[in-house]
């Protein structure tokens, strides 16, 4: 079994004129439309009263949890980072949970999707950093504590983003792959357990991905925290290692 066969980028669903729409883009759209419709349906009949519908309650819990998490990591005000980091979390976790639905192909299983998300984070870090601290203030962190560390800082940023992209892709893809392999080897019972495990790791990785994105952004925006970036990186790696 080749890896290419697994990559959703290779699965062409249909064509729109010249453009071939593959599974990654198709299911991304499905997820996007689903999320927007659900959000719209619930928020449409939303109220500020004390009595609220269970659906609204669920959404409020999710949004509030994300907000609190962002605030805990150091995003202040949380509303500024909320759309970006929150969307990463919701998009990834939705894809990873829907992965157990037969026929659904998780877009996060494609390295292209995770690379796109990692790129977004890679760009979001200087974007938020510069908007919060100014260009010079942001650039200064590359030469701290000494200008000697400049290349290391640059390489650190790049490798960090690369790891960011590969981590998510690898996990989702491996989960899918292990599932496929096990179905071939042991058709009964065991694959189900493995799928459950995949579901668990999928949720955890959605969380990790979003938290790491926020940590990177926070490290770029906070003035006091220029140097501890590496430590955070180590801590993140430890966290990731534990999760894996």
């Amino acid at each position, binding site marked *: 079994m080749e890896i290419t066969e697994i990559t959703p980028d290779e699965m062409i669903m249909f064509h729109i004129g010249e453009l071939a729409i593959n599974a*990654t883009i198709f299911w991304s759209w499905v997820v*996007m439309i689903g999320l927007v419709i659900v959000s719209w349906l619930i928020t449409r009949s939303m109220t500020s009263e004390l009595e609220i519908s269970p659906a609204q309650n669920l*959404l409020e819990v999710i949004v509030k949890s994300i907000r609190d998490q962002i605030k805990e990591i150091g995003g202040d005000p949380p*509303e500024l980072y909320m*759309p970006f980091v929150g*969307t990463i979390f919701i998009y990834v976790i939705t894809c990873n949970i829907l992965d157990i639905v037969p026929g659904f192909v998780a877009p996060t299983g494609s390295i292209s999707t995770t*690379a796109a998300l990692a790129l977004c984070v890679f760009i979001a870090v200087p974007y938020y950093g510069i908007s919060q601290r100014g260009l010079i203030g942001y650039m200064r962190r590359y030469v701290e504590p000494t200008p000697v560390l400049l290349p290391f800082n640059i390489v650190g940023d790049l490798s960090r983003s690369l790891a960011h992209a590969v981590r998510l892709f690898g996990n989702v893809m491996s989960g899918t792959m292990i599932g496929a392999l096990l179905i071939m080897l042991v058709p009964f019972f065991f694959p189900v357990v493995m799928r459950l495990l995949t579901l668990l790791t999928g949720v955890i990785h959605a969380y990790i991905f979003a938290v790491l994105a926020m940590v990177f952004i926070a490290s770029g925006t906070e003035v006091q925290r220029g140097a501890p970036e590496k430590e955070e990186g180590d801590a993140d790696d430890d966290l990731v290692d534990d999760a894996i």
Partner: protein
Amino acid sequence: MQIDWVVVISQIVNFLILVWLLKHFLYGPITNAMENRRQAIKDQIKEAQQREEIAEDKVREYEEKVRQLEQQREEFLEKARTEAEQNHEELLEAARREVEALEERWRENLREERESFLRELRDRMGERVCAVAREVLSDLADTELQQQIVSVFVERLGALDEESLRDLRDAVKEVDRAPVMTSAFELSAADRERIENALRSALGSETTIKFRQSEDLRCGLELSIGGRKISWSIEGYLDSLEESISETLHREADEDADTDEPREAETATTTGESQGE
């Protein structure tokens, strides 16, 4: 593991679109709703606090009122109690006074009754004694006794001192009437002469005397010159006897009254003790 850059770019675009969509359909409304609710709850809590404060004020106010009422009630009760006690005391005092007055009146009545009784007794006794004496003397009176009486009268007339005699003479001169000699019995001629002689020697030779008989005198003689009288009669003795009897009886009655006094004082002290209790 190949990266399809077309897919990457389209996914970036997709992601950014999703970010924008969720911002408008999810985060915005939810955050607003939560913020609004938070504000509403805050307002409600604030309102509730204000109400509570008002209620507490009211409670304090009413407690104060209740306390005042209680105090007023206490005052009224105290006043009523004091008044009642005062009334009680006054009534007791009035009753005591009334009883005392009644007792006094009763005592007075008793005393008066006793006195009147004693007086009556005295009078009756005096009268009775005198009556007996008179009866006896009347029974005994006869010519011999008459002569004896005349002798005594003449003797007494002779024994009068100079001053009395002068008074009598003056009286004879002043009054243009003859002295009247009253007797209980018919006087014999010898007795009349004896008396006339005695009077003439005492008052003057030219004096004429009228003789009169009166049963009232019982036994004895009486010479009256104008307003003045010289007499010897059993009546005088009897009168002095009556006087002495009545005096004695009066004194005894007074002594009785004196012995009564300490008894009253004793009762007064006992009533004083009972008051104290």
